[in-house]
């Protein structure tokens, strides 16, 4: 089976005053379809850099990135955008929904970026909202939704273009424990159902019981890795 994501010997450094800061130090990682991987670690450990590299938002200093078996390490900005549209779904911290769009329109927007529109797109958006338990909220704007509902819309939006890889950034940071667990359960469910590879970057240790694997990042190094409680 082709891995959804393969990172090989990834190193990312930043200039930091007079010295160089190593955000990711020779990291390698493989995410299989249907697998949820949680990456935990303290602030500044390199979690967001890992997500940015996997999301083609940041070009590493060295190493190789493959998405669905295709080398995408050195793509132009435009080609990287195309890969994000076609292969990646991003779920942001606090959902980052567009304030002028309703829940349904958030999903339609994702399809429109690929040039798709019309009744079929609206129908797919409604199906996805239904799948995340928000069929009744399709016409609501972000300020009319709760934090948990906004995060669900963000997940549905990320699934709109049938991604190979789902990258999730701190999905529970703005939610209480119970709602956070709901969101994590939803992410692992759609990962299983749709055969997507999912990487969840989080501070929340509650993710552990749902993720198939847990990776710990510290000072840019994958210092620990073990099987979690979900699936197997």
């Amino acid at each position, binding site marked *: 089976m082709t891995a959804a994501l393969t990172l090989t010997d990834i190193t990312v450094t930043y200039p930091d005053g007079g010295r160089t800061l190593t955000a990711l130090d020779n990291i390698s990682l493989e995410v299989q379809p249907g697998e949820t991987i949680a990456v935990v670690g303290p602030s500044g450990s390199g979690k967001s850099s890992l997500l940015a590299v996997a999301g083609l938002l940041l070009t590493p200093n060295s190493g190789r990135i493959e998405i669905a078996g295709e080398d995408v390490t050195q793509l132009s900005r435009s080609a990287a955008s195309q890969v994000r549209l076609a292969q990646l779904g991003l779920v942001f911290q606090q959902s980052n929904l567009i304030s002028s769009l309703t829940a349904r329109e958030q999903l339609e927007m994702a399809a429109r970026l690929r040039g798709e529109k019309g009744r079929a797109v609206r129908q797919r958006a409604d199906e996805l909202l239904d799948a995340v338990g928000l069929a009744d909220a399709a016409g609501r704007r972000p300020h009319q939704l709760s934090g948990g509902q906004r995060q669900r819309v963000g997940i549905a939006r990320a699934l709109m273009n049938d991604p190979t890889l789902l990258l999730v*950034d701190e999905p529970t940071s703005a939610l209480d424990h119970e709602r956070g667990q709901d969101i994590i359960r939803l992410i692992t469910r759609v990962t299983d159902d749709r055969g997507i590879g999912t990487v969840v970057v989080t501070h929340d240790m509650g993710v552990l019981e749902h993720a198939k694997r847990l990776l710990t990042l510290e000072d840019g190094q994958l210092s620990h890795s073990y099987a979690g409680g979900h699936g197997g």
Partner: protein
Amino acid sequence: MFLALRDLRFAKGRFALMGAVIVLISLLVVMLTGLTAGLGAQSTSAITSLPGDRVAMSQPPAGQSLSYTSSHLSDGAVAAAKRQHGVKAAAELQIAQAGVQVGGHDVAATLFGADPASFVAPHGLTANSVVISDELAKNQHLSAGDEVGINGMKFTVAAIRGDSSFSHMPVVWVPGADWGRLVGNGADSSVLVLSTGSGFNSGAFDHAVGVDSMATGDSLSAIGSYSAEHGSLTMMQAMLMGISALVIGAFFTVWTIGRTPDLAVLKAMGARTWYLVRDALGEALILLVAGGALGTALAATIGTLVGDSVPFVVDLSTTAVPLILLVLIGMVGAAAAIRRISTVDPITALGAAR
């Protein structure tokens, strides 16, 4: 324009405020354009409606510019002009300002003197008669057959022809034969009106006749205060256009900065910069066209209502043209502001980078 239309609907207050500013700017620009055209017509319509295609004036003294009111043709200039190659017709036009007595009071007017037999004289001009403009006839309730006085001489209104004015005064055409008795020596001026055809050589003509000739349209700057007046009003229009570009640019700069987190998310999702720029330009275009059209319609309505008492021209050149210019210049301002979309880094959509 999926996002643009929804932004406009969602942020109604902000866009309504900006739209109101565009309405006011377009109202001012179109009012000023109509007024410029109206005032210009009051200064020049008697010249622009002359038959023929060129005007010649005596060469001004060193350091002075050509002027209708200080041009004096030499004796024999008309005859010399008629002999030149390419000249189909040439006639002298005499110009003076005078009071016209109508019903016991004086009305300021510009007298145009011409030989009734020449091509430049209006139809109906005969000895002891005058041809007056529509404006004078309307304002003084004159009609053909009525009597007016000029410097103590009585003339019958032979005809009413056109809405012609010169230097903001209505024009009264008088026969050239009466000119000497009407106007004191040195109180008048004279120019040549020419109808030219193929083979006309401006340089050779000017040299042979001792004049400066030019196309009729180019001669308007030689009318009294027309250049200064037209220049001032045109400068005000240009400044208003510049202000509109700055205001639109400032609005869209603030708007784009406010949207930066949304733009970063869309870029992270895979949106290309051009898609986002096109959407934002669409937003600006809708705002400019809607606000500009409303302001233009208001200005045209006001212009039509006050057209009898204020010199104001309402036509395509004073409404559609400034509207199109306003939209184009506004789009330049918006484009300069929206350009910053290209600098939004999608990585800022991630939590740690915010």
